[in-house]
């Protein structure tokens, strides 16, 4: 993302530098090259001033240098204290002139020193770059520039913004610039009336950020504007309140979908087959590790495919955990049908062994599983923020649910599976190969836990303990929803998720979780077979 942006800016600036030489030369007196070189000896405070001076040149050729500075790619050569943009090239750095963009040869890594940067400097750079790129011919760059100014407003950019607004033709960019201008105006020395209008603009812009801007500015504003600010804040907040509820529901649904993911494999192995499968969490963990291995292979051999890594990991995880599940069923569980409470002991042993195996192979520490770009970041919906990864996880867990439902209800395997769990002996006499069905049912449940692990690797850490943190929640969901009923698992997961998220703001995360557990215990007293208990003559038969 940033690299792409960097390249684009870089290219454009070279172009604009060629196209508009007069503008480029027309900055303030200071020579940009010597300003940049001064960075080699500057502390953070001095660097801040230097950046201000660089911004004041208005020289758009400086954008790549500033960008490199903010990314930590600016170096000075120890021999002559000249500053360059450095790019790693094997054991050397490829040096690039910060102003002209021309190559300046290579230097050994220990011949140059990185110029230190911190958050305050990054903020200043962001603002400076915003100013420098507001007039860029590229719409995307201008939009980003307006955003940058909006986030780090300063009165110095005001006139530039006004120039940019007058030239702007694109509606969205213009709107953003108008907002940025309003924000910048609050800290300028413009008239009270202009500021009043700016407050209105910000109010219409709305959202949490607007409240922050107004509250931040209110202290330094003329006292006569205080009423306007308060009214604007109140109005934004009242609009925000409903969105907040919506946001909370969203969080609840998203937590619920995670619970659903974690529990859905268990709904098969425990809910349908009646095995108290304490190794379920480890299946999730194996799925997450499969994702890690797939990403590792992709990183090493085909980095271009990284965005596809999850899609590749899904079948891999399904097959790996399914196969492990198959082995566990054939090796251990098949001897224990009819003794559900003892399956607990054996699978507990299995879970210890799986954990230790993974620990021995991969080590006890977290492994890095990256987010593909389409799962990173967020987008606004009205006053809510929706993060892409949560959004995909909800979609993913619902589609697994639907797929499983279809397999159970529509396929002949699903029919055999249900027949075997309801009456194993009779199913065998109907010609159903019961051992085969048992093994593949368990493998299916395990495989689904595995693909849940692929999704969970995106939000949680991938370590040998991953499974342990989900096992209790999973059992709660299945029992709360009603054993043997997939719909119960769905409704159970979602309602527990939403309940949790509505308790959390008022009582805190810890008490919230305790309360949910207590409520489940009480609920089971009321309905001993869970939310979606199977009813009617059929159950007793």
């Amino acid at each position, binding site marked *: 993302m*940033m690299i792409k942006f960097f390249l684009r800016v870089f290219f454009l600036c070279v172009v604009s530098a060629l196209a508009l030489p007069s503008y480029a030369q027309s900055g303030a007196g200071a020579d940009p090259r010597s300003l940049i070189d001064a960075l080699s000896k500057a502390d*953070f405070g001095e660097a801040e001033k230097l950046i201000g001076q660089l911004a004041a040149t208005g020289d758009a050729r400086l954008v790549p240098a500033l960008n490199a500075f903010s990314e*930590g790619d600016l170096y000075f050569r120890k021999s002559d204290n000249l500053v360059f943009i450095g790019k790693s090239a094997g054991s050397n750095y490829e040096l690039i002139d910060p102003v002209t963009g021309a190559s300046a040869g290579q230097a050994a890594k220990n011949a140059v020193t990185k110029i*230190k940067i*911190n*958050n*305050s400097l*990054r903020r200043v750079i*962001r603002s400076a770059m915003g100013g420098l790129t507001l007039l860029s011919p590229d719409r995307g760059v201008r939009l980003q520039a307006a955003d940058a100014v909006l*986030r*780090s407003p300063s009165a110095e950019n005001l006139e530039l913004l006004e120039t940019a607004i007058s030239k702007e033709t694109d509606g969205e960019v213009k709107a953003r610039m108008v907002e940025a201008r309003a924000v910048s105006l609050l800290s300028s020395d413009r008239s009270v009336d202009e500021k009043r209008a700016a407050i209105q603009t910000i109010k219409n812009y709305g959202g*949490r950020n607007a*409240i*922050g*801007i*107004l*509250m*931040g*500015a*209110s*202290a330094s504003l003329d006292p006569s504007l205080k009423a306007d600010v308060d009214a604007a804040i109140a109005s934004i907040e009242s609009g925000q309140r409903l969105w907040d509820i919506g946001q*909370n529901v969203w*969080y609840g649904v*998203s*937590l619920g979908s*995670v619970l659903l993911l974690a529990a859905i494999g268990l709904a098969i192995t425990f809910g349908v087959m009646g095995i108290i499968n304490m190794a379920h969490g480890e299946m999730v963990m194996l799925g997450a590790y499969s994702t890690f291995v797939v990403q590792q292979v992709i990183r090493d051999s085909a980095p271009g495919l990284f965005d596809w890594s999850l899609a590749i990991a899904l079948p891999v995880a399904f097959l790996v955990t399914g196969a492990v599940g198959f082995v566990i069923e054939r090796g251990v569980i098949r001897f224990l049908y009819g003794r559900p409470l003892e399956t607990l002991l054996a699978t507990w042993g299995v879970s210890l062994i799986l*954990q*230790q195996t993974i*620990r021995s192979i991969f*080590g*006890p*520490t*977290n492994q*890095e599983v*990256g*987010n593909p770009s389409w799962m*990173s*970041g*967020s987008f606004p919906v009205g006053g809510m*923020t929706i*993060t*892409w*990864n*949560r959004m995909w996880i909800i979609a993913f867990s619902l589609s697994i649910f639907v797929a499983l439902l279809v397999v159970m209800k529509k396929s002949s395997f699903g029919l055999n599976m249900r027949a075997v769990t309801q009456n194993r002996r009779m199913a065998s006499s109907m010609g159903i190969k019961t051992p085969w069905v048992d093994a593949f049912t368990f493998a299916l449940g395990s495989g689904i836990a595995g693909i849940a692990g692929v999704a969970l690797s*995106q*939000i*949680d850490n*991938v*370590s*040998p*303990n991953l499974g*342990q*943190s989900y096992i209790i929640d999973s059992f709660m969901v299945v029992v709360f929803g009603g054993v043997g009923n997939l719909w119960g698992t769905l409704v159970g997961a979602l309602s527990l998720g939403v309940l*949790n*998220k509505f308790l*959390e*703001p008022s009582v*805190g*995360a*810890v008490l919230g979780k305790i309360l949910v557990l207590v409520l489940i215990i009480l609920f089971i007293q009321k309905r001993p077979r869970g939310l979606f208990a199977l009813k009617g003559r059929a159950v007793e038969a």
Partner: protein
Amino acid sequence: MTFKSKLGGALLAAVMSTTALQGAFAADDTIKIGVLHSLSGTMAISETTLKDVMLMLVAEQNKKGGVLGKKLEAVVVDPASDWPLFAEKARQLISKDKVAAVFGCWTSSSRKSVLPVFEELNSILFYPVQYEGEESSRNIFYTGAAPNQQAIPAVDYLAKEEGVKRWVLAGTDYVYPQTTNKILKAYLMSKGVAESDIMINYTPFGHSDWQTIVSDIKKFGSAGKKTAVVSTINGDANVPFYKELGNQGIKAEDIPVVAFSVGEEELAGLDTKPLVGHLAAWNYFQSVDADVNAEFIKEWKAFTKNDKRVTNDPMEAAYIGFNAWVKAVEAAGTTNTDAVLDSIIGVSVPNLSGGTSTVMPNHHITKPVLIGEIQADGQFDIVQETAPVVGDEWSDYLPDSKNLISDWRKPMSCGNFNVASGKCGGKGS
């Protein structure tokens, strides 16, 4: 006699004979040291590394000829993240294996669990992890950071360099964050921060759904004042927390997060690109530019045969503790606990950030505080380094501990001397 009695008798005999056997094995030409770190269970993720470091240090020392002309032998046990088991294993190491000193523990609970054992059996524990302070035992050396060696300088940095005026203190609900946040709150308020500008939030262990809290932080941060998060979130919960921060688009330039439990090892499990600029405060970073550090990293990678293994602060603390012990033993000429306790105070050994660390009379050590910003490669870029700070066992910002000091030199020999009353023993009344 039933089979039961035979079984019981056999069992007892077996236990006794293994004891006798192992006792006989303890050859006289080695000095044993205990390594008490969880290799399984929830804490294995952090502690296993420290076990490896200890084995490496012992191997290095033996290459240099051991200690007092004898080879060192590390006795490794697994307390399995189970706190009572820590006490049992500590007792076993001291009584059965007769180790000269023990290096171990990570969580405060495990340290609290073994503390009475070390005091009772008069042995030495080197504790290598940053902790909440408020403790000073005659038999324990705290080579990790006390709150004043980590939290307070970090807050100072944010207030000064980033102009932070509003603070979120987010932590896992256990003793270290609770205490640290109490100290920080008192400290911030003493610096003139209004109570309404401090938000404290606790989450359970292993919390993985951070959506609400991150959005609360965002909300709290949109009050027009520069806001920062001081994170005492522990262990595994950090990864989902940072992932959520990244996804909700909280950039370090807007709301920086400074963490005290996130080091190179934790970042190894994360894609750090969205986190560039968030901070951590430690006494050591792998990126420290010092020859001794480069050497250490090289040895570590060679020892673990893994080029990707990182180093971190508790490893440095283990390194300092081990070297201080070696130096003290050589000064005392014996591994006898009392002699070592006397000789170790004032011992200075090189630390990995290029300076030296000295063992102080309060059984804490001096070390510089480093503030680092997270980089895209999972390393830290050091933005500030202080002069060496003495670990403060009794915080000056808690009402009941501000009058206490600890000095284990004779004749005071007291871990909780009250300077107001002039007596040893807390209130001293």
